[in-house]
């Protein structure tokens, strides 16, 4: 089957297993995993799901980290006719239970038999399918069926499940390939999480689609060494990461000459604001030339919307904003001012029309209705402008979204959780960039109900409870939790939190000077 005739993700894996069974689909821990082995694993897992009564359209929650099991479970669920729902594997039981409720999943795939137990959800492992045959018969899949749900943070505190169809995924895979001139000769090196869109679609589906080499690494946010070693050793040509990962690599590496990254053709910098200093610093340190390119995308357009052109010098505007390039094939980018298209150079709301756009959020008509502009454009929630040549520049965000290590968090999510901790009367969550390699991080400011009589130990216990609650539900920890006196959080006249003012007064030291911070003293 020629590549242009592939209609579903299952076609994609099956076809590679037929055409090049012995070729490595990917390398994991330096061991090749062949397309044949991948395909057999997919079919065994699908058979196991069939035994468990999974039928077409059922949702299967997958809480697995990077590794071969993820692919068996992900494609196996889809093969069985189900909708795969990847989840952050470090999510606590509460977060997994919440996701299971939202998408109506009754099965959760976990790494080991002793893993998480979630009420009302049956857990299984990929090893549970070892005894199953790999020659089962499975439902036909339509290209417009939902392949998987990508959960993203919701502004109301409830995650939203972006519905991604086979057709949309294959469309975006082709857009990404054309946009970055990717070929089967490229060698992908990735540590990005496979349970999230950029790591899953760009860094695994694209190489599968082309039969290109893929070196997959464990997820590592802060240790750049295995990443750089893998690029050096495998002569990697294509990698991707958020800006902070490149900054971190620069900080970590004392002697860049130990690594040879000159094989790189594309190092995509996306999922976070791109700093011009990162592009210049990384390229200079490793002797690269126009390899680090800025990109932009969102789950609602499957993943990729545009990237800068590899090999061309980056475009940086007078305020230091790096252009994320021009739209991919068949994508239209518009900037709205007062809900109508704006002229070139005017900053406004970015909306995207693409054949890879989602149809909406799973089982959430209200959020879906709010997503679209003129029926076919998705609202990104980001602010930016197009120059005369229709190059896109991202200048900010409509909402107070916090970008914490490449994860998007809405303040309301963290605040709802914090407010439920005993002793907390009100809280505010903001993104603070302390200037270090970690980039913007989640900071939580919590007013305590009764500050009088609280000793140091009790203040500590409250902070620990807040950190634990956020970690259990969001899977990440705030960089800092401050306890404030009552009415320490600045509010508008009608009682809304002034997030920007809180951030500004914290950063300037004015919040500390005003004496409202009870704990800690740094």
């Amino acid at each position, binding site marked *: 089957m020629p590549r242009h005739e592939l209609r579903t993700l299952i076609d994609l894996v099956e076809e590679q297993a037929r055409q090049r069974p012995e070729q490595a689909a990917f390398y994991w821990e330096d061991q090749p995993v062949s397309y044949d082995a991948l395909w057999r694993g997919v079919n065994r897992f699908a058979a196991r799901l069939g035994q468990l009564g999974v039928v077409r359209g059922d949702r299967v929650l997958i809480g697995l980290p990077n590794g071969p099991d993820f692919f068996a479970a992900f494609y196996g669920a889809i093969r069985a006719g189900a909708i795969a729902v990847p989840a952050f594997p*470090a999510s606590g039981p509460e977060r997994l239970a919440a996701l299971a409720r939202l998408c109506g999943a009754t099965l959760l795939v976990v790494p080991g038999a002793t893993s998480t137990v979630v009420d009302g959800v049956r857990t299984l492992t990929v090893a549970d399918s070892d005894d199953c045959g790999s020659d089962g018969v499975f439902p036909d899949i339509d290209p417009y069926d939902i392949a998987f749900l990508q959960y993203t943070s919701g502004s109301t505190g409830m995650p939203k499940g972006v519905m991604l169809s086979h057709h949309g995924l294959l469309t975006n895979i082709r857009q990404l390939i054309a946009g970055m001139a990717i070929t089967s000769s490229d060698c992908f090196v990735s540590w990005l999480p496979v349970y999230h869109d950029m790591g899953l679609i760009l860094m695994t589906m694209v190489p599968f689609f082309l039969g290109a080499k893929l070196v997959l690494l464990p997820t*590592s*946010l*802060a*240790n750049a*060494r295995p990443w750089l070693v893998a690029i050096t050793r495998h002569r990697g040509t294509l990698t991707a990461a958020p800006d902070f990962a490149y900054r*971190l690599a620069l*900080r*970590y*590496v*004392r002697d860049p000459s130990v690594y040879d990254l000159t094989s790189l053709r594309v190092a995509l910098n996306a999922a976070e604001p791109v700093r011009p200093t990162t592009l210049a610093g990384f390229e200079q340190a490793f002797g690269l030339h126009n390899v680090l390119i800025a990109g932009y995308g969102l789950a609602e357009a499957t993943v990729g919307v545009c990237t800068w052109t590899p090999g061309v010098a980056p475009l940086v505007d007078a305020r230091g904003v790096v252009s994320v390039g021009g739209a991919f094939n068949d994508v239209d980018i518009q900037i709205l001012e007062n809900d109508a298209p704006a002229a070139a150079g005017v900053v406004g709301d970015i909306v995207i029309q693409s054949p890879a756009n989602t149809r909406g959020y799973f089982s959430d008509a209200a959020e879906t209705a709010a997503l679209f502009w003129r029926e076919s454009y998705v609202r990104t929630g980001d602010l930016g402008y197009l120059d005369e040549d229709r190059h896109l520049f991202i200048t900010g965000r409509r909402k107070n979204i916090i970008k*914490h*290590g490449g994860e998007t968090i809405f303040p309301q999510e963290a605040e709802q959780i914090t407010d439920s901790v005993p002793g907390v009367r009100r809280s505010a969550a903001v993104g603070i960039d*302390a200037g*270090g*390699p*970690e980039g913007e*991080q989640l900071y939580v400011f919590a007013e305590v109900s009764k500050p009088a009589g609280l000793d140091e130990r009790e203040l*500590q*216990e409250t*902070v*620990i*409870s*807040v*950190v*634990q609650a956020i*970690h259990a539900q969001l899977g*990440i*920890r705030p*960089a*800092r*939790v401050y306890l404030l006196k009552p009415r320490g959080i600045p509010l508008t006249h009608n009682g809304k939190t002034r997030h920007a003012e809180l951030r500004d007064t914290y950063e300037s030291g004015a919040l500390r000077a005003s004496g409202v911070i009870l704990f*800690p003293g*740094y």
Partner: protein
Amino acid sequence: MLIELDDVCRTVGLVLGRHDPKPDDRIQADLGGESIDVLNIIVTLQQKYGISLDEADLVNVSTVRDLYHLALKRSDAPT
């Protein structure tokens, strides 16, 4: 500010949401810290003690005690 081992333990505990980590607990393997948490611990110690830590030193840091020794070394270093 004087750097004391039990104070470093408490500070690590506040970032990780852990009651009373022990000096020989490994930050990632025993206390469940992610690599981003390690960076946030570093930022916290820098602010708390007014010291400057080089991320490159982190490669050799595994336990809370390792962090304490690193912080001590940096506080003695001429600035």
